[in-house]
């Protein structure tokens, strides 16, 4: 009887714990979004210059400038302007570009696929190649391991900007295999989409390959030295099965954490890569909007990036739970 009661309450306890964790996650996420939006608004507003000066250029008179400031509502106190923006944002209205009048949601919507393609492609490239190299390095104590060390150092040290130009020079100008700039929409031409992403993905992902390869190799070596591996070998399990079914799964836990951090880093890396390859993504949008002091657009993109961070963290938590059952009960 006692056993039956205990067994019945377990799912309820788990459900309660899940609900509490979800509520905590939601509260933290909302706080993060609020802080990001407030800080972004503050920083962009306090930066020298404003949209009125950008519209008028360097030659507008002070009278014209003051009149335009008033017309654009830039005269209102900062707190009032932020309150107006926040109120609208809570109703799902992110406003419109001060310059073009285009809605921020539609601007972000038109550029989101580009940034997502770039980040997803780079992540896939970094994880697949990085893990394969890491596994190879862990199983070989010779030149492959040392090569991975060198590659990791080089991969992390190479400036993205420089690497991008090098790849374009080699594979778009000297050998015209890929386009030097631009993006092709997947729905328009899938092969063109793929080709337009090859060089940007290599540029953005190569640093990640190096990091993941090194992390995987180190984690794999730690796991390979554990007793359970010796036991499996003694039981006659094939080396392939030991490495890929058991060791790699356990080694994946620290690697997953690195991948999560890397994914967040990739979003910020898109700003440079989109600049080099002239890709119409969110990075380029936020750079241009910031330089024009187009606050609604900057706010919208900052919120989008913050949402990425929030959901990436959630994804990593979920993956962590899948890979490490102990993490689910704590």
């Amino acid at each position, binding site marked *: 009887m006692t056993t039956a009661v205990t067994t019945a309450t377990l799912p309820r306890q788990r459900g309660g714990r899940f609900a509490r964790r979800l509520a905590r996650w939601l509260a933290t996420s909302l706080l993060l979004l609020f802080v990001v939006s407030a800080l972004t608004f503050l920083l962009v507003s306090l930066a020298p210059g404003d949209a009125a000066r950008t519209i008028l250029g360097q030659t507008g008179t002070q009278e014209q400038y003051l009149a335009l400031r008033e017309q654009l509502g830039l005269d209102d106190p900062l707190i009032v302007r932020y309150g107006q923006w926040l109120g609208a944002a809570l109703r799902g209205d992110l406003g419109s570009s001060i310059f*073009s009048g285009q809605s921020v949601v539609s601007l972000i919507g038109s550029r989101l696929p580009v940034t997502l393609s770039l980040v997803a492609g780079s992540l896939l490239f970094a994880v697949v190649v990085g893990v394969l190299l890491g596994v190879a390095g862990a199983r070989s104590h010779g030149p492959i391991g040392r090569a991975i060390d060198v590659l990791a150092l080089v991969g992390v040290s190479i400036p993205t900007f420089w690497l991008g130009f090098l790849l374009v020079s080699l594979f778009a100008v000297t050998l015209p295999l890929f386009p030097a700039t631009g993006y092709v929409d997947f729905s328009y031409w899938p092969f063109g989409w793929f080709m337009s992403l090859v060089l940007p993905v290599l540029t953005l992902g190569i640093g990640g390959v190096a990091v993941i390869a090194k992390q995987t190799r180190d984690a794999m070596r730690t796991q390979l030295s554990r007793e359970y591996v010796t036991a499996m070998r003694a039981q006659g399990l094939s080396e392939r099965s030991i490495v890929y079914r058991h060791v790699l799964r356990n080694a994946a836990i620290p690697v997953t954490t690195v991948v999560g951090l890397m994914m967040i880093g990739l979003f910020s890396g898109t700003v440079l890569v989109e600049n080099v390859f002239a890709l119409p993504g969110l990075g380029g949008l936020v750079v241009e909007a910031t330089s024009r002091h187009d606050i609604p657009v900057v706010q919208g993109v900052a919120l989008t990036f913050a949402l990425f961070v929030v959901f990436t963290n959630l994804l990593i938590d979920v993956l962590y739970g899948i890979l490490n059952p102990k993490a689910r009960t704590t």
Partner: protein
Amino acid sequence: MSSQHTSRARRLLAAAAAAVALAATLTACTPPSGDPDGDATGSPQELRIAMQAGPGTLDPALINQAAQWYVDLAYSPLIQAASDGTLRPGLATAWEYVGEGNTQFRLTLREGVTFADGSALTAEGVKKHLEYVKAAGGQMSGVLATLESIDTPDDLTVELTFSAGNPELPLYFSQGGVGIADVISPTGLEDTGSLGTMTAGAGPYVLDQSATIANDTYVYTPNENYWDKDNIHWSKVTIKVIPNLSSTLNAMKSGQIDFTTGDYTTATEAEKAGLQVHFVPNVFSGLNLLDRDGTLAPALGDQRVRQAINYAIDRDAIVEALYGKWGSATTQTTHGVGYVEELDDFYPYDPEKAKELLAEAGYADGFTLPVVSAPFFNGDTMVQAIAGQLSEVGITVQADSKADVNEYVTKMASGEYPAAWIGFGTLPMFVEYQQLYGPTALFNAFKTTDDELTALSEQLAVAPEEDVKELSEKIEARLVELAWFAPVAWAPLGQYATDAIDAEAVTTTTGEHPIVAIVDLKPAS
């Protein structure tokens, strides 16, 4: 036997799947119809332009002049300026000042013109357009600030009355005055909120909104209603925003882009890549000696000190170091009407003469000169180079660089600095009076006046066209003599074109008109 059957079936299935995948891949390898991003497969009839920045808005009343190509393609100006600056009829077939004093201006409109949206060009429509531009508060609204009335005696005549004379109205009613010249259709004016993302003009092309990504790619197709169909040279025009000029050059080398604006930092590379490279001297770069009354820095209130600064600068050495063959030395503020070649020798490099003048003015031991600077257009490097040379005559420059263009402009105009780096593009002398040296000009932070300069500028405002050159030259000579500025070099502006572009329009730009008339670009024959 059963196992063999299963194995064979699997192989057949795999082969079929592979065939389907291959067919799908091959299909996917072929673009549906042309390349939306303009790769090397673009036909010669397609013009692909790269710009370093997007327009922000497509509303002619609010667009920045630097982004005028985005609207020039879709809006026809009242007066059309060719690449060399000569004016020809556009939506207006004739224009003239009425009476004396350059305060009344009459435009005669072209008959039978319809906008891309089908609405008709009328005098009443032009009046509403000008009223909108004046109220919108954009870059050109200042020019219309003195516009007192707009009369439309008939359907094709527009008469404008200004409260002050302006000898440059034909320029403002050409592409040079983006918002003013590019007439918006009556339909477009009914919904001005949409003008930022669409076009409503009577130009040779119309924006294809479905193929356009704001601030990244702008696609234009021919306007079927264009009044001058013989001058539509391209079946499609694409402007691609490529923020990085090195990326633009790579795109040109690999055949993705046909035409762009260039700068001297990439000019040699462009030349080596076999591109057409055409540069003209346009932006004077040097020092703006703002405190001409000596409010903050008493030394600058003495003309001899300002002249000493001009004598102490080795312009040729700085030009060679900063711009190489793409720049040239100058002492003047304009390379257009008003430029006098001999004036460039007014201040030969003579540090001894500079020391003498400083001693005469009571500054034999020199003085300290705070200068607000900026990194764009090589401003900071220019100031450093000048500082090195001024130190030889005892003047210590304290440079304060502002990374943001708006902050630099605000500080330069604030009256907090006695001097500033200046990079100022060539403009007609009357416009320089309004923006560079006149009592209300932004670049005249301390609002200094000089009786002779004011008198000449007031004469220029009301002068008939035939007197403009002589008066402009006198003003330039006075500016050089007063040494309100210490110009050092002409920083060039120009463009790069591939062989797909006819050289004629590319190579005819001048210092006063450095930007190609984009509608005049033609395919190479």
